[in-house]
């Protein structure tokens, strides 16, 4: 929760400050925030060094810490060589040697915090919990006068060295109400484990182990301003105000805290000012601790034994300090630059219409650029059951902090042949820098069976052309039977006779069957219609058009859309005869339709009612009759409820 420098009230030590802005709260603060820790993204490394202004100023390394984020967990390790406090005092006993010289006996008490381990887990963006484990050593060396009775009697100094190791474990929780307000609650001296022998007389000199609660609130009324308060259950507290600002496009923050400590005078025992500079990769902080009382005065042993030492670095014997720290953020993982807002499936998947999805997106995503720079996004998708690999869609570039639509295209393999519809899942990916996606989302998608059709006559073209080799083979077989006929007629009539011969060849094998599937369009592939020996107008039209196309006859579909949504399809084919040659096939000028080819030349097209499975002439008559009435007389073509869809 904190960065920079701070010193916390009473038992909580610090040298990490209150600091919150939009950028980073890099490092864990073991003492007051074992739960919230930080928003570090990957690795972090920190050094802290300082100077104490005692009677002899000296500089020392306070701490080295390393942190690593692993998804929702954050682990921190800390080595604190500078967290130590040593007391030297004369014990009051003076030894008079044989030569009458005086020797004062002294005691030395050394308190050190050596290592710390912290762990926190973010359950969600609002709540996290954590624990800290800290290892201390306490060493008590005392010189005592000792009488030795041998041949002579003499006094000697005896040094008693007692050392105990202490492990402190504490827990904490952190709750973010929103981006501006958070609360934290932690323990102090929850579990203390002491290892080592300590005589009864020395117990009172150990570090304080009284259990306490520390509660904190952090409030940012504005983006550039942060207010914070920490309170300990023994009535110590710390309050601070921090501000972040930019100078020449660089990020700075500054702040000041005051603290009250139950064992220190005056009531406000001191202040902690700090200044910090931060970039994406590192942070440098400079802070100071200024105690309001004179710390270079003499203290008595009675002062020391009044109460146990609550903290090694912040106690009534601590000196003013200046602290410098630097933190490095080493992100080996890419930061998320873009994020999905939503994905919508635009169309059901019709595997038979595979070509459609190469040119028409099947899904649309709404994404946002999270960064302050333009980002080029590579969208990809993968539909379970259809594609095993990700299919890339066209890249787009999004402006900083902007949203955009991204479209997903896909490809249906030719060998897809599932006849049943199924609900599957489509995975969508967006990547900004490299192959590792910034975000991904999954959405259910309906995959129709291979025979499903969306009811758009224009899409029947895809079915007509699917497995074209079958149509070629079948039409060849049919026409080969009539080789003699075709060889005997003029070339200009070949197209007409192909249409006639193929139709007559298939009609005696087929029966008209209406589509029983009321909920979805179902169209048979040509080979299925021949195998099943029947079908509806769609199936028969697909068969006939496919065979004609494979035989080199240009075809089109006539789509009749009645106001009551009943649809019908016929096939029209190009005889390639010019209108002046119409008499070659008919004298009734209402039995053909003239269309211009690409060169602008008029050609005769015949409309065939494929459901009229008697013979070609009957089908031709029926087809032309319907066309003349609906398309021409009723002006269906002009009004749009009759449409001619060229297969090619």
């Amino acid at each position: 929760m904190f960065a920079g420098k701070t010193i916390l009230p009473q038992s909580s030590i610090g040298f990490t400050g209150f600091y919150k802005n939009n950028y980073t709260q890099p490092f864990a603060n073991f003492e007051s925030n074992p739960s919230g820790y930080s928003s570090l993204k990957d690795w972090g490394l920190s050094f802290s060094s300082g100077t104490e202004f005692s009677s002899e100023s000296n500089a020392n390394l306070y701490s080295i810490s390393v942190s690593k984020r692993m998804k929702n967990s954050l682990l921190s390790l800390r080595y604190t060589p500078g967290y130590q406090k040593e007391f030297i005092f004369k014990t009051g006993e003076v030894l008079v040697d044989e030569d009458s010289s005086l020797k004062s006996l002294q005691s030395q008490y050394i308190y050190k915090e050596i290592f710390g381990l912290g762990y926190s887990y973010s359950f969600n963006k609002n709540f996290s919990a954590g624990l800290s484990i800290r290892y201390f050593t306490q060493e008590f060396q005392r010189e005592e006068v000792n009488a030795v009775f041998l041949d002579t009697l003499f006094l000697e100094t005896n040094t008693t060295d007692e050392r105990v190791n202490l492990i402190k474990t504490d827990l904490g929780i952190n709750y973010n109400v929103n981006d501006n307000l958070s609360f934290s609650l932690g323990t102090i001296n929850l579990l203390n484990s002491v290892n080592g022998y300590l005589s009864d007389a020395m117990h009172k000199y150990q570090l304080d182990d009284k259990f306490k609660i520390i509660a904190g609130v952090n409030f940012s009324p504005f983006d550039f301003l942060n207010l914070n308060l920490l309170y300990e259950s023994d009535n110590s507290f710390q309050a601070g105000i921090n501000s972040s600002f930019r100078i020449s496009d660089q990020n700075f923050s500054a702040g000041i805290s005051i603290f009250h400590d139950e064992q220190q005078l005056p009531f406000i025992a001191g202040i902690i000012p700090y200044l910090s500079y931060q970039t994406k990769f590192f942070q440098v902080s400079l802070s100071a601790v200024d105690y309001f009382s004179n710390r270079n005065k003499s203290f008595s042993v009675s002062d020391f034994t009044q109460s146990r030492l609550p903290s090694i670095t912040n106690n009534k014997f601590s000196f003013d300090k200046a602290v410098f720290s630097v933190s490095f953020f080493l992100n080996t993982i890419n930061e998320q630059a873009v994020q999905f807002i939503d994905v919508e499936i635009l169309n059901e998947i019709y595997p038979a219409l595979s070509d459609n999805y190469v040119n028409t997106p099947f899904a649309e995503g709404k994404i946002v650029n999270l960064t302050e720079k333009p980002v080029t996004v590579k969208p990809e998708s993968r539909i379970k059951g259809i594609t095993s690999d990700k299919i890339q869609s066209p890249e787009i570039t999004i402006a900083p902090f902007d949203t955009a639509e991204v479209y997903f295209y896909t490809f249906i393999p030719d060998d897809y042949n599932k006849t049943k519809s199924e609900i599957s899942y489509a995975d969508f990916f967006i990547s900004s820098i490299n192959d590792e996606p910034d975000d991904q989302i999954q959405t259910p998608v309906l995959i129709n069976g291979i025979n499903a059709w969306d009811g758009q006559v224009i899409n029947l073209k895809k079915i007509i052309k699917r497995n074209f080799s079958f149509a070629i083979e079948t039409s060849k077989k049919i026409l080969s039977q009539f080789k003699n006929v075709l060889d005997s007629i003029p070339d200009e009539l070949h197209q007409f006779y192909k249409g006639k011969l193929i139709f007559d060849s298939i009609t005696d094998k087929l029966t008209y069957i209406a589509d029983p599937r009321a909920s979805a369009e179902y169209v048979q592939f040509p080979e299925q219609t021949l195998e099943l020996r029947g079908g509806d107008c769609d199936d028969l039209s697909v068969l006939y058009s496919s065979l004609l196309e494979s035989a080199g006859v240009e075809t089109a579909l006539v789509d009749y859309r009645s106001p009551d949504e009943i649809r019908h399809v016929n096939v029209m084919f190009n005889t390639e005869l010019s209108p002046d040659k119409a008499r070659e096939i008919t004298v009734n000028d209402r039995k053909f339709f003239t269309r211009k080819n690409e060169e602008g030349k008029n050609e005769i097209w015949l409309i065939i009612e494929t459901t009229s499975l008697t013979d070609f002439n009957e089908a031709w008559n029926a087809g032309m009759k319907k066309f003349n009435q609906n398309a021409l007389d009723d002006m269906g073509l002009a009004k749009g409820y009759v449409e001619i869809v060229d297969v090619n």
Partner: protein
Amino acid sequence: MKKLYGHFILIAVTILLAGCDKPAPTELFDDSDQIQVEVISSDPDDEFYSTGFDSTGLAENPVNYTNLVTVSGIKTTRNSGTENMSFAQAVFFDRNAPVFGPNGRLLGYRTLNPGLVRFNNIPAQLHPFRINFRGHGGEHADTSLGSRYVLSNDRGHPNNFLFPFDSFIKFEFVPILSGGVISFGIPTPKEITASAKVSGKFSDRNLRIELEWNGANHNDFELIIGTKIKEEERVIPLFRVRTEDDGHLIIPTNLINQIPQERFNHLLFSLVRKIERDYMEGETEFHIISTSIHSIVIENP
């Protein structure tokens, strides 16, 4: 990125090198009991000290002085109760007549009886002045150095002499031969009344003695720690502890718990307020010691 790592290493090394000191210690001054401990004699069998605590309650070596005047108000507390005694003595040594022991060590000087001595107008009596020493074979022996002028008020010697605490004793010396009467006042310290709290056991070597008395901030105050030799009446002074006359002292445990229990049993603690000075009249110099003593005997602690 390489440049960044390079900066990182440079800054890290700088911090590590700059932080080689350790935090300065905090020095505390001890406002608790200040005591100065010395061994009275490294050889508990020293010839002089084989007298132990003589009836004066003192452990002074008379070889240092020519004319010695001592006055003492002494209380001794045992399990059976407290006895009071007043004692005054004057000893005149003939520095031309040293007395040596068998090993050639100076035992003292022969005494003189040059006149009459009175304390508070009460004449002092002549008593033999004997000192003990070790013979050739280490055996205890004694010898007389002569006589000394003694005035004491105890069970064996009832008289009117009473040591006046926090007052003066008039000393008079009337020489037999030439010279006039030498007279001066001897200031006396305040009376000491002490008690001892005992916890633990001598045999378990965890004996703890806490002394309390009526502190008077007297500038010459000391405690003599002694012990009684088993099956003998002699008490040997072992340690002199100088401390504040503030009315409270916890005896350093390592002093008393190291005493060999096979040789010694009872412990003796003598709190002494002393006024010591020299008086010169003409060519005659007197060394004067005036003491208020309370001795507490802890029998078989």
